[in-house]
């Protein structure tokens, strides 16, 4: 297996990047999922989102990706002196519960499309080969994804992080279904990204062998009930 550290087109990310939020809250289906969430990460940070089932890890990641609005609080994405109110689509990658793969397409076709979608250019054959080899998928590149086992499919989804170079990684349960060997690879990949100045926010129930902080979503559950006072 190749060294995940040597990702082609490797860059050192800007060290002045900072993502932070204060007093953030989010509602979903009329319910307060979390509130009063404060956090700050900067270039080179790894944050593990922990918390009970239903505590809002996935929800928080979807808020960060811009799918859901924060109902409250202040979110900022600072790039040196530039301050934005949302992450820039050019700067992050997201992997969610579903893997976003087309079952009819081969792994190669899926990967090619993903790279084109995110960067506008097709990946070089060696870049693609290397990205596949990170999670040991080299031999499966020309197989349709529908014949993959669950773990292989999940690895195919994780391949994006080795394929497209972006500073911020939002990962929802990246360890699910991975065997021991591939969990180690994932940890290595994250460590390498940290070293490049990347930022990783990963929601997971499994321990991860990466130095970093933990953000416990259980701490931001609504203490007193949601009362939208306007309505009473």
């Amino acid at each position, binding site marked *: 297996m190749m060294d995940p550290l040597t990702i082609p087109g490797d860059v050192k990310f800007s060290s002045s990047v900072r993502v932070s939020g204060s007093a953030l809250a989010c509602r979903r289906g*009329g319910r307060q999922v979390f509130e009063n969430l404060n956090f700050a990460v900067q270039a080179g940070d790894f944050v593990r989102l922990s918390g009970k089932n239903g505590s809002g890890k996935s929800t928080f990641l979807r808020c960060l990706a811009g799918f859901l609005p924060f109902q409250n609080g202040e979110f900022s994405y600072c790039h040196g002196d530039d301050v934005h109110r949302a992450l820039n689509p050019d700067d992050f990658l997201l992997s969610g519960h579903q893997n976003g793969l087309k079952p009819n397409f081969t792994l190669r076709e899926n990967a090619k499309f993903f790279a084109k979608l995110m960067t506008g250019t097709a990946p070089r054959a060696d870049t693609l080969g290397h990205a596949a080899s990170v999670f040991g998928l080299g031999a499966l590149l020309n197989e349709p994804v529908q014949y993959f086992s669950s773990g292989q499919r999940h690895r195919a989804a994780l391949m994006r992080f080795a394929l497209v170079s972006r500073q911020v990684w939002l990962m929802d349960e990246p360890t699910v279904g991975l065997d021991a060997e591939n969990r180690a690879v994932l940890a290595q990949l994250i460590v390498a990204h940290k070293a490049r100045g990347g930022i990783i926010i990963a929601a997971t129930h499994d321990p991860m062998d990466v130095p970093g902080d933990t953000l416990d979503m259980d701490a931001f*559950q609504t203490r007193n*009930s*949601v*009362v939208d006072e306007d*309505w009473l």
Partner: protein
Amino acid sequence: MHRFANPAQFNRLADVILPWAIGAMVLLFGAGLYYAFWASPPDYQQGESVRVMYIHVPAAWLAMFTYMVTAAASFTALVWRHPLALLAGKAAAPAGAVFTALALLTGMLWGKPMWGTFWVWDGRLTSVLVLFFLYLGYMALWQAIDDEEKAGRAASILALVGVVNIPIIKFSVDWWSTLHQPASVIRLDGPTIDGSMLTPLLLMAGAYQAYFVVVFLWRMKLEINRRKLSVARQAMMHAPVGAE
């Protein structure tokens, strides 16, 4: 703007207006129906069947008016995220559907003696039918999505798409020469209709309008109270953390 964002404030305002609106509605319907069925002459051409007009025409006007109300509420809800605007659209739409159905039914009943058929596929009739389906779609979207906020915004998008239909209804009779007659009251160069028919028509239009205000405010209050109740119930259900 945000003075009305407060549902409590709105409730109080509605409580003030409602009795007056109900009074106006009763008076106008009384006078309008009296004029329409007893105190106006039969048409020299259409005979007694002209009286359908006093039901049909205001219903058609209000069908379009209500749609514009719904669309304006939708626009406000989408652009300014005004919480009451969503409910305003929801409160108005069923009334609009009723007006549209009434216009269609009376039109069909009137069409039999006038044109010799209940239905022709001309621009006016077709576009009103489409309006009816738009109301149904709007209400169905509200029903189909459980998250109220989301449901309301989805329905609002549809309502705005459907605005295209309104000018088609209005001007279809001018664009295509069809069986349906062109506007004679609401036109740039003033009404071309006889005064003896204009009076009951305007009275009935006023009555429909008052009826709309009553139903609209009533349903708004209902929706606000329902929302209050569900907020309160949620507050109770999720009171202590991890109560499961």
